[in-house]
């Protein structure tokens, strides 16, 4: 028998709903369905073969392929390479409000320190109440220094200051914390672009909330268009999420997710496992 367009449409509609229920953004789910339809329409399959199972297999492979993009990011490889060249690895953290940037920076600083790298943090969120104190207290727990100015200072200046400090002291990594921002605010997006222009980070890291639905796609897309995301970290994965936002984020940026946040403690930073996410999304 052949797979008709009609039967495929019906099967794909169900799968689209399943993907959306798993928090894959609707436009991404629709795009995936279209691609799968193009691949399978008119295809000859065995009399006893179950078309639904065939679509599921194709979908599973497609999702795995998305989560394993060709561009790879190895933080430790980068740190080693830069260390040999005597320069710090500069990482700029950006993202929407409340996604976990500041906490994630502390977690990563903790991880790098455990692996024997020296780290300095930049308190470049000079806007939000308590942002500098929050980073300072986290830094104290990790045992790393914070470069800060005062509230209202130019974030780019704080970031630049931290990079200069790292260069002068031979520090391996500079982790720059920035204010949360909505991607629809031109001024805030311009401010972020300026920070990136001034410090030329080795890595611009997008921090996304695993609980976000369609907006994960919007955020990743706009942040990527603005400053070029090199990789992402998905937080709050411990909150019983299906994890579909991982698909949206990697699909629209073409860049890998390098870590996931699995809680509020310093060691709640784990490696990203595409298989786990795909199984979860399709469960």
């Amino acid at each position: 028998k052949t797979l008709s367009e009609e039967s495929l449409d019906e099967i794909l509609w169900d799968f689209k709903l399943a993907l959306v229920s798993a928090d894959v953004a609707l436009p991404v789910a629709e795009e995936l369905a279209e691609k799968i339809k193009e691949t399978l329409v008119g295809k000859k399959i065995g009399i006893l073969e179950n078309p639904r199972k065939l679509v599921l297999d194709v979908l599973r492979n497609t999702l795995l392929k998305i989560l394993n993009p060709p561009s790879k990011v190895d933080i430790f490889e980068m740190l080693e390479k830069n260390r040999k060249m005597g320069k710090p690895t500069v990482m700029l953290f950006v993202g929407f409000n409340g996604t976990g940037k500041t906490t994630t920076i502390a977690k990563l600083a903790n991880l790098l320190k455990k692996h024997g790298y020296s780290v300095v943090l930049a308190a470049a969120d000079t806007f939000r109440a308590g942002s500098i104190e929050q980073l300072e207290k986290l830094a104290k727990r990790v045992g790393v220094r914070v470069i800060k100015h005062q509230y209202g200072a130019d974030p780019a200046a704080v970031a630049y200051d931290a990079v200069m400090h790292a260069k002068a002291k031979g520090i391996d990594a500079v982790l720059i914390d920035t204010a949360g921002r909505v991607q629809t605010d031109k001024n805030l997006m311009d401010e972020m672009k300026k920070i990136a222009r001034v410090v030329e980070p080795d890595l611009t890291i997008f921090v996304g909330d695993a609980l976000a639905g369609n907006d994960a796609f919007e955020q990743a897309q706009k942040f990527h268009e603005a400053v070029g995301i090199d990789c992402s970290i998905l937080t709050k994965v411990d909150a019983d999420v299906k994890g579909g936002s991982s698909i949206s984020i990697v699909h629209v940026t073409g860049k890998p997710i390098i870590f996931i946040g699995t809680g509020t403690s310093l060691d709640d930073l784990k490696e990203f496992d595409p298989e786990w996410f795909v199984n979860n999304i399709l469960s």
Partner: protein
Amino acid sequence: KLGYALSNAVGKLLGRPLADERAIKEFIRDIQRALLQADVKVEQVLEVSKRIEKRAFSEKLPPGFSRREHLIKIAYEELTQLMGKKSYRLRIKPNKTNVIMLVGIQGSGKTTSAAKLARYFQKKGYKVGLVCADTYRLGAYEQLLQLGKQIGVNVYGDPSAKDPVDLALKGIEKFRKEGYDVVIVDTAGRHKDEESLMREMKELASKIKPDEVILVIDATIGQQAEKQAKAFHESTPIGSIFVTKLDGSAKGGGALSAAAATGAPISFIGVGEKVDDIEEFDPPSFIGRLMG
């Protein structure tokens, strides 16, 4: 004021030579797409679209209504039904210290919203106090303290305190003695699978006996909203919902599903990071934005 996507769907429908079964089904599909993209729970989207479809095919055209107007009327009515109760206004009881407790998932905007609510009630002439009962997040007290300073509202907190219940009771008592009308208690972020935190929230509510528990929900939340909200509601009955970050691109469909799941009305929305970026919830403009 009807959302762009909805009026687009209707326009498409009436652009056809016949408002036949196929055209109506496509109209329903367009509505489904708009609601799904707005993060409304999949099951709810299917329910609402079933109801719209049923009425579209079974209802007689009311006198004076065009097919177009009738369809918009049906869709709008069914979407408004999703909204639940109409405008809900938080009532401050006279001659007592009203306690408002904010709860919600990590990063949803509780602390910022606590300050916004304090300002909102302060503008109405009430004597307002803020209590930082978040004993986990580093810098939580400093954050609320700085916000309080911005608006001239006293903040009670103790960064060294380990017991949020004891801290909250102390803070409320202090404000009560000084004749405050409203005390807003900010709590630590938590999600439904952090069992001890959910138990702590339940205990906190039973001890401080709030006049209102407000669930703060991020407008960007996706399909997990309903499940999370239900779990919160089971631990501490939710009085109303505060939807934050609606100044972004998110439509808040998740918060809507949460409201429907808990039966709690939406009382306020957050439309920015500043203390004045708060609005009383207005169902028609929320629907308009949802479908836009």
